[in-house]
């Protein structure tokens, strides 16, 4: 920005400050955790950073403004707070400058200069916020994968794999890997796959379960599918899926009884 405009803006600082604070005060945040005092602090910081930025220049050179955006976004303040703040700042600056008695060309030049100054800042706000979201999504995705498909050894030679939630291709792969690795590691003879928590069993899910059971069979162990709800049983029949290759039971309890029978074990009450 050229020096004359910077000077002009800095000279009008008090005026801009007043108008901007008034306007931004109207912005009601839905975030209750932020007290009016904190908001005032935030507004003051925002404004003084903007003025610093005007007098000192480029955003990447200094980065305090970016840090401020980051802080605001991390505190769960909405993105609109920043964009509205910036937009009203631009509007007020332009209004105040053009109130001065200047020529048409000069006014035009000023508009251009201010726009050119503001646009990178707005871009960096948007970029910052989308980066933050992307990070959150990827963290949640990996968190989801972590609780995905554990194989739990229950008794000697008997393990259980409870499945909860939607099974997509990625999870199906993970299920298969965990299952086979676990069968070897725990020397399981019987694995119970519990699908009580799987909301929909369509052909894809069934296909993955059949494949997993088949692979377990190749390792010399038996797979028992348990937790089949009545409505799921009906849809499986309607779809015409053949699950007769391995035993199925309605509940984990019945499956466990069967597993104990297969492994020649018994649970005995001690007198």
């Amino acid at each position: 920005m050229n020096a004359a405009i910077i000077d002009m803006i800095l000279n009008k600082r008090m005026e801009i400050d007043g108008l901007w604070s008034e306007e931004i005060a109207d912005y009601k945040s839905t975030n209750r955790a932020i007290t009016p005092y904190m908001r005032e602090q935030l507004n003051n910081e925002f404004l003084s950073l903007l003025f610093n930025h005007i007098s000192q220049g480029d955003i990447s050179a200094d980065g305090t403004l970016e840090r401020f955006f980051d802080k605001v976004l991390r505190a769960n303040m909405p993105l609109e707070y920043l964009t509205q703040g910036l937009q009203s700042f631009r509007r007020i600056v332009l209004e105040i400058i053009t109130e001065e008695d200047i020529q048409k060309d000069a006014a035009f030049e000023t508009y251009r200069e201010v726009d050119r100054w503001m646009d990178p800042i707005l871009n960096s706000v948007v970029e910052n916020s989308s980066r933050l979201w992307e990070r959150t999504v990827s963290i949640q995705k990996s968190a989801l994968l972590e609780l995905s498909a554990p194989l739990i050894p229950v008794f000697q030679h008997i393990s259980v794999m409870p499945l909860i939630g939607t099974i997509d291709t990625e999870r199906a792969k993970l299920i298969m890997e965990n299952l086979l690795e676990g069968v070897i590691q725990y020397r399981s003879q019987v694995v119970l796959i519990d699908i009580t928590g799987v909301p929909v069993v369509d052909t894809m899910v069934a296909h993955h379960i059949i494949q997993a059971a088949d692979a377990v069979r190749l390792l010399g162990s038996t797979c028992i599918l348990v937790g089949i709800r009545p409505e799921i049983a009906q849809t499986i029949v309607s779809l015409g899926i053949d699950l007769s290759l391995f035993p199925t039971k309605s509940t984990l309890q019945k499956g466990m009884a069967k597993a104990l029978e297969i492994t020649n074990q018994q649970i005995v009450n001690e007198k």
Partner: protein
Amino acid sequence: MDIQSCVEVCNEWDIVSARQLGRNMAKELGFGNVDQARITTAISELARNIYLYAGSGKICLEPVEQMGRKGLRIIAVDNGPGIRDIRKVMEDGYTTSGGLGAGLPGVKRLMDEFTIDSTINSGTEILATKWLR
């Protein structure tokens, strides 16, 4: 509630959201547990077909009423490569992707009415309706 709701399908998670929409609408219309499961499974199959074979498309759901009967209609539309031999895909066990080949014939059995319309290189449209008993 007689407006159509649509879900764009272009990745695996869209299948889940189409399914959830279907379950909610079926519940609102008063379908029982078993029929809800049938409808969501049918949506899941159709949405997965869109995702697997056409890449992208959409699933629309609308409540329908005909001769005093109420029901839910699933409309699956895509602009994919189309289906070359419809009679063959309606056969059990026919698959081009290594799956079970039970998807489309399964949907036909899960729902009460089923029509399929496909043009090579321009896309496929499937209508499937379930009536409330």
